[in-house]
């Protein structure tokens, strides 16, 4: 009971503090912009811990954050093995190959408006399809190891990146294209110096979508067959054994990896498209 009351007390106090912070002038500084969401996140963890302890929820239903942290600390080697199998071998090569192929395809069909008009509606449609359904078929073709995971990721990221890149290549303005023409720029010169840079904001939109899809694809593919390690494998087996603290540990790793990957791409975006209005502060 004391746990419950204490937790709710802490929650209310933190919320009041956050409200004060957000209303004060301090909220406009970088430190304030970081402090408010962090405080909110910490409060959620405290609330979770307090509810689990206070209400006596069994660990097979919902383990407390402290139990999950303890599990992470003792099973670091396993987590690293799973992470390198799923992320470094499955998601990352698939992401690079899939995005590379999409960019190359977009540039290849760039000179043919006919192909573009044909491919763009189909690409848009396919990008909205549940491509994850291809996972069992690709696992059947490429075997249980990381090659099939990478293949699923390639197919999943290809269409969103393709559609964005094709749209991006059309983004430069008529005036700018005319200016390049008055300078006597060749097709390749105007592609490299004008249209590729102009396409970057669109490309990075696609890459950001692809970054979250890549991890999803790699994990789903493991549900259909995998070696005896990997994040998807560990999650599905530990759920069966009710080892929920290990499942949550994997979720924490997946969340961290997903956020870090997304953050990295957002960082590169800021560096590459520093000239775009959305990046000016």
């Amino acid at each position: 009971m004391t746990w419950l009351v204490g937790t709710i007390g802490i929650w209310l106090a933190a919320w009041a503090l956050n409200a004060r912070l957000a209303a004060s002038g301090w909220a406009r500084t970088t430190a304030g912009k970081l402090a408010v969401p962090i405080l909110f996140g910490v409060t959620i963890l405290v609330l979770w811990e307090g509810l689990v302890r206070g209400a006596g929820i069994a660990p097979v239903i919902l383990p407390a954050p402290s139990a999950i942290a303890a599990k992470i600390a003792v099973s670091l080697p396993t987590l690293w093995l799973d992470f390198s199998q799923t992320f470094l071998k499955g998601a990352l090569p698939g992401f690079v190959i899939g995005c590379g192929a999409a960019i190359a395809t977009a540039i290849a069909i760039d000179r043919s408006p006919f192909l573009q008009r044909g491919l763009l509606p189909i690409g848009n449609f396919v990008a909205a399809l549940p491509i994850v359904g291809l996972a069992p078929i690709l696992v059947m073709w490429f075997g249980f190891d990381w090659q099939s995971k990478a293949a699923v990721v390639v197919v999943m990221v290809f269409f969103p990146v393709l559609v964005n890149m094709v749209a991006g290549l059309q983004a430069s303005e008529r005036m700018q294209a005319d200016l390049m023409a008055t300078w006597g720029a060749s097709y390749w010169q105007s592609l490299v110096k004008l249209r590729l840079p102009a396409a970057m904001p669109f490309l990075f939109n696609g890459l950001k979508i692809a970054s979250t899809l890549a991890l999803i694809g790699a994990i789903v593919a493991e549900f259909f067959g995998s070696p005896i390690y990997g994040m998807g494998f560990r999650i599905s087996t530990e759920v069966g054994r009710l080892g929920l603290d290990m499942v949550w540990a994997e979720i924490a790793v997946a969340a961290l990896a997903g956020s870090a990957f997304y953050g990295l791409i957002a960082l590169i975006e800021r560096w590459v498209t520093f000239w775009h209005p959305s990046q000016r502060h």
Partner: protein
Amino acid sequence: MTRALPVLTVLAGIVAIWYAAAVWMNATWIFDQAERNGQTVTWAEVIPQTMDQARPLLPPPHQVAAELWKGVAGQAVTSKRSLVYHGYVTVKGTLMGFGLGIVMGVLLAMSIVRFRVMDMSVMPWAIISQTIPIVALAPMILTLSSQLGISGRDVPKAIIAAYLSFFPVLVSMVKGLRAPDQMQLDLLRTYGAGEGATFLKLRLPASMPYFFASLKVAIAASLIGTIVGELPTGAIEGLGARMLIGSQFGEPLIMWAALFAAAILAGMLILAVGVVERLARARMGVPA
């Protein structure tokens, strides 16, 4: 016609590549088989055989179409082998998740636009929530809800679908509710409109184009979430479960038919959202 021609050409190209790939991939099995029997086969004999294997590596389009037709029209709709039945299960989950996602997204967006503290504390976490691979959480949500005594898979599936579909709605609604400019807000203040009236008469109508644009993304995301929710161990109903069954029993045709059924479903759902959008726009007097 000028718009359809390029699309049809590309589609024809895809089908041609598909047939070529089917011949190439399925031929290996026939050559192996012939070699084992000590026979030699020519390509002229092989090609017809690649077109109707029982367990092809890559079924050619007409086999998939036949299987799809058998699943849709060849069974009673209530049969466990009917794709209509499995499609219905998936659509039910998708629509529940879609509805839940819209409600969550709109409510969150309203409070984020109204309260600065919500904007600062919740918005970053909403973004982070989408970088967490939901599939890692999916088996977790399934066991959690069965531990809590919720029977069936409808609720956990809807939660997974809502987790994916609330985000596009949230982002667009935040943008949409902030779309009215200062002049319009000032005008309403000179009318003496309160916060509620400003919301109902200015902010909400102004957000509608953003809202409908996000619905198409949200319904596609919701369908993906539902299918992912049907994939992990134990599901027996729905298109995702159909794919799993096809994979476990080594029946590629079942997998492909389920995959195409899901694709057709996605197309129908997106079309339906488009129709609703057009009706709503006409009702609100937006010129088409």
